[in-house]
C-alpha cells in the first residue's frame, strides 16, 4: 500500500499544474456546497424549534384561515389574522377532545383519537390538512386545522414536523444561493472528472506497456489510489474551508453539529466522483488488448 501511495504522489508531481488546478477546483466547490448545506440545516433547526414551541405537544393545531408565517427575525411563528372567538368553545364541546388551549392567536387541541376529531372539525366547516406546505384555508372556512399527530396512519412516513422542516430546507435549496452552491459542486465535479480522464488518456501508452507484461489489475489499483487521494484531499480541504467560511460569515448560526451534518451530506459525493472519474474509464481502457493500447497512442 505505501508503494501505491508513493507512486501516486510521483504521478501528481509529473503534472504539478494540473494537480494543483484540480485540487483548487474541488476545494472551492466543496467549500461552496458545505456553506449552502450548513445554512440550510441551520435554517431548518431554527424553524423546527419555533414550531415545537408553537405546537406545545398538541395533536391538532387550529390556525387562522390565512395560516401562519415564520418570522425569522424573532424566530417565532406568527398568526395571519385570528381564529373566530367562539371556535375554542365549539371545539371543546366535540367528543374525544381532551384539552383545548389557546396560543398566540391559534388553538392547541389534544385528543384521544386525532383522526376522528379531524373528521368532526371538517364537519364544522374547517379546512383540515396534514400537509405543512398548505398555508391557507379554503375560501369561507373559519380556520385551518393541521393534523399534527398521524400515529394511526399506516403509510404516513413523514411526521408533520419533518414535513415542516422539509418546507423550510426547501426555501434555502430553492433559492439562488442554493442553486449556485449546487452548480458550483457540479462544475467542480466536472473538472475533476475531466482531469482524471485526461490523465488516463495521457498514460495510454504506459498502460499498454504494463498490460503487455501482464500487469492489469495493479494498474487499476494504482489509478484508483491516485484519484482517491486527489478527490479526498480536495474534499477535506473544501470541507474545512467551507466550515471556516460559515463560522466566519455567520458566527451566530455556527454549531458543530450543523456543520458536521453538512459535511456528511457532501461526503456522499466522494464515491460517485471516484466511480465516474476513475473506476469506469480506467476499467474501460484496460479492457483493450495491449496491442490496441500501444498502437492507439498518438
Amino acid at each position, binding site marked *: 500500500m505505501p508503494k501505491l501511495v508513493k507512486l501516486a504522489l510521483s504521478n501528481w508531481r509529473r*503534472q504539478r*499544474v*494540473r494537480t494543483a*488546478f*484540480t485540487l*483548487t*477546483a474541488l476545494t*472551492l*466547490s466543496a*467549500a*461552496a456546497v458545505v*456553506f*449552502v448545506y450548513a*445554512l440550510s440545516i*441551520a*435554517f431548518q433547526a*431554527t424553524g423546527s424549534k419555533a414550531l415545537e414551541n408553537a405546537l406545545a405537544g398538541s395533536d391538532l393545531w387550529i390556525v387562522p384561515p390565512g395560516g401562519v408565517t415564520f418570522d*425569522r*427575525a424573532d*424566530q417565532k411563528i406568527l398568526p395571519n389574522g385570528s381564529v373566530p372567538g367562539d371556535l375554542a368553545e365549539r371545539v371543546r364541546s366535540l367528543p374525544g377532545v381532551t384539552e383545548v388551549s389557546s396560543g398566540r392567536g391559534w388553538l392547541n387541541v389534544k385528543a384521544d383519537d386525532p383522526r376522528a376529531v379531524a373528521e368532526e372539525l371538517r364537519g364544522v366547516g374547517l379546512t383540515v390538512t396534514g400537509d405543512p406546505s398548505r398555508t391557507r384555508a379554503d375560501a369561507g372556512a373559519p380556520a385551518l386545522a393541521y393534523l399534527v399527530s398521524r400515529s394511526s396512519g399506516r403509510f404516513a412516513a413523514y411526521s408533520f414536523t419533518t414535513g415542516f422542516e422539509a418546507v423550510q430546507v426547501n*426555501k*434555502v435549496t430553492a*433559492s*439562488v*444561493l442554493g*442553486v*449556485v*452552491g449546487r*452548480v*458550483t459542486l457540479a*462544475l*467542480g465535479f*466536472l*473538472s475533476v472528472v*475531466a*482531469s482524471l480522464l*485526461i490523465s488516463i488518456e*495521457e498514460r495510454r*501508452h504506459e498502460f499498454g506497456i504494463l498490460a503487455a507484461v501482464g500487469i492489469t489489475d495493479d494498474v487499476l489499483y494504482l489509478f484508483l489510489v491516485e484519484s482517491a487521494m486527489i478527490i479526498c484531499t480536495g474534499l477535506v480541504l473544501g470541507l474545512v474551508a467551507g466550515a471556516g467560511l460559515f463560522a466566519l*460569515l*455567520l458566527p*451566530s*448560526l455556527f454549531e458543530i453539529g450543523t456543520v458536521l451534518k453538512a459535511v456528511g451530506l457532501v461526503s456522499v459525493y466522494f464515491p460517485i466522483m471516484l466511480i465516474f472519474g476513475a473506476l469506469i474509464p480506467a476499467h474501460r481502457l484496460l479492457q483493450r488488448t495491449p496491442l490496441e493500447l500501444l498502437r492507439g*497512442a*498518438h
Partner: protein
Amino acid sequence: MRSLRYTLRTLRRSGRSAVLRSFSVGVAAALTFFVLAQTSTVRAQAEQLSVGGIDASVLERATVCLTVIAIVVGALQIGVTMTRVVLRRMGEIGILKAAGIRNREIFLVFAFEALIYGALGGVLGCLLGAVMMLFGPAPELGEAMRAAAITIGLAVVVSAAAGAIPALRAMRASAVEAISYAW
C-alpha cells in the same frame, strides 16, 4: 498580432471543442449574470433567509461570492484543459521555437486561447442567463448591461489567468526537448 492569428487558426482546427471547453465557465457565468442583474430577487430571497439576527446583506454578498467562486472553478477547468492542449502541441511548440519564434509570442498563443474560451463562456453565459430571466421579472436594461460587462470581464480575466500557467510551461520548454516530447 501574429500570435492571435495563430491562435484563431488553431481554434478553427477544432471549432466544436472550443464550445465544449468553455461550457463550465458558461454555466458559471450564466449564474453570475443572473445574480448581478436580478439584485432585487436576490435581495428578497436573502431577506427571507436571514435567520435570527443575521444581516440579509451578508447572505446577499455570500450569494455573489459563490457565483464568483463558480466562475473560478469553471476557469480552473479551462486551465486543466490547457495543460493538455500544451502537452499535445509540444512538438508544434518545438518547431515554432526552432524556427525562431519568440518565447513571448508562444506564451501569447496559449494565453489567447484560454482567453477566447473565457470570453466565449462569458458570452454564452450571458445569453443563457438572459433566457433564465425570461421566466422572472425583467431587470432594468442598464443594470443588465452592467452585469453582462462584469460577467464577461470576470470570465475573461480569470480564464486567461488560469491559462497563463500552462502557457508559461509551453514558453519555458527548450526547442529540442519540445520536439522530442512524446506522451
